[in-house]
């Protein structure tokens, strides 16, 4: 049976892992390849690098990070941030990544998803969707939730509705959706399971839940109530509040299929 994945996410700035709040007060937290390898040993099912390097400061630093990581952490690797063309995606895959995640670039040019899927297969194309809940209209209490797609880390709004955009992204070629609740991101108040379920029940591709993890129980809820196939988190792992195996233990105790590290080790 397909295991539910637990995915640590690392923010990478100019080739170093950074931690900060809303892209501010960034502190150097170490070498991405080293941290990725550590997470892989702890049982991470996959690693996501989010490249937050400003465009004018890029120059292949991320490719070098990907190359070093793929050389020592033998788990799947997804890179998001900064990839805007088929050729750039090719370079990232050739450096050793398995998937590339598109967010703002896909909103700006949805055909990019199709072009990349045709070239590399939809399994390599992840569409990242940052969604913010729309206020409930007066007199519509109890109505199903609606979410708008936002870009640039939540600083810009779009006229896209998140569930509709998710379905369209899959039609265009995305093989996986990384769904982040901007209302919950960084708040440690749990995942937006209504958002997740609204999307996961309407698409056939895997959905990765993101934004809001406070503890292992939230991972269980994201899968059970949010119907997510995988769950991503950053700060709770970086700050060592919980380990990947803590999370998996809670998921296994809740009856969810997970890959326990004991099974693959000696």
């Amino acid at each position, binding site marked *: *049976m*397909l*295991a539910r*994945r637990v995915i640590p996410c690392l923010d990478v700035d100019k080739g170093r892992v950074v931690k900060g709040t809303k892209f501010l007060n960034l502190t150097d937290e170490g070498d991405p390849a080293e941290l990725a390898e550590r997470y*892989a040993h702890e049982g991470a*099912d996959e690693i996501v690098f989010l490249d937050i390097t400003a465009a004018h400061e890029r120059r292949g630093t991320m490719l070098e990070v990907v*190359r070093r990581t*793929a*050389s*020592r952490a*033998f*788990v*799947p690797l997804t890179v998001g941030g900064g990839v805007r063309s088929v050729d750039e995606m090719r370079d990232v*895959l*050739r*450096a*050793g*990544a*398995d998937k590339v995640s598109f967010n703002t670039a896909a909103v700006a040019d949805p055909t990019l998803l199709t072009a990349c899927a045709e070239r*590399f*297969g*939809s*399994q*390599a194309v992840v569409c990242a969707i940052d969604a913010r809940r729309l206020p409930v209209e007066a007199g519509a209490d109890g109505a199903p939730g609606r979410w708008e797609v936002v870009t640039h880390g939540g600083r810009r709004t779009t006229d896209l509705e998140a569930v509709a955009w998710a379905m369209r992204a899959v039609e265009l070629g995305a*093989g*996986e959706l990384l769904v982040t609740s901007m209302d919950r991101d960084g708040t440690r108040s749990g995942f937006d399971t209504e958002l997740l379920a609204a999307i996961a029940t309407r698409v*056939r*591709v*895997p959905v990765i839940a993101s934004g809001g993890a406070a503890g292992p129980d939230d991972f269980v809820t994201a899968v059970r109530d949010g119907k997510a*196939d*995988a769950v991503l988190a950053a700060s709770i792992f970086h700050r060592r509040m919980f380990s990947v195996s803590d999370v998996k233990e809670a998921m296994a105790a809740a009856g969810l299929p997970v*890959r326990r590290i004991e*099974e*693959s*080790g*000696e």
Partner: protein
Amino acid sequence: MSGAIRVAVLDYGAANMVSITKALAAVGAEVSVAEDAAGFAGMDAVVVPGVGAAAPAMDHLRERGLVEPLRDWVRAGRPCLGICLGFQLFFDASDEGGAETLGLLAGRSVPLVDAPTLPHIGWNSVNVVRSHPLLDGVADGSYFYFVHSFAPVPSDESIVLARTTHGRPFVSAVAQGSLYGLQFHPEKSSEAGLRVLANFLGLVAASKAGATPKAGVTAPAADSAGVA
């Protein structure tokens, strides 16, 4: 260990070359990348990696003049491992784009049936149906990483080593003589994957020495799988 096993990984533009070459090196192989027929010279084994679609992959293999050398290599009984799309290409044909593939194993690749999600991405359990040195030390039900939408249906049931279920069961590992195929990605499957690659090197070493390894015998390179 004396006499490192030399493995050529075929580069036909359809694979993550970094992961597979580094994973093979991590379990002790001397790895080179073969972009054309010359790359087979002096090798002990060939690995055919790959993700993506069958038809363009066959086009790339043809363009680089790799189809006949690969067929000759396998027909001569020399060790060869196919991974994911590389494994699917061993069969006669694929429903993916109606591609005619290498014809080294009887059967064809078909879409996964009744799959709850497609592509089938993630860690899934591999159920061993036949004991074989390739899967030595792999507990029944161990998790490996998969990324695919198609899977081969071999005509000859006796080559099947393992099955995995996503919707319905499909074949996830085969062996026929010195030809081995894995639907999962050992190079992305952490310690369990490195173990299988080490087992493959053990089989190559045994064939190099002219011996036939017995099921249950630990592969010589398997020790290194635990530390990588």
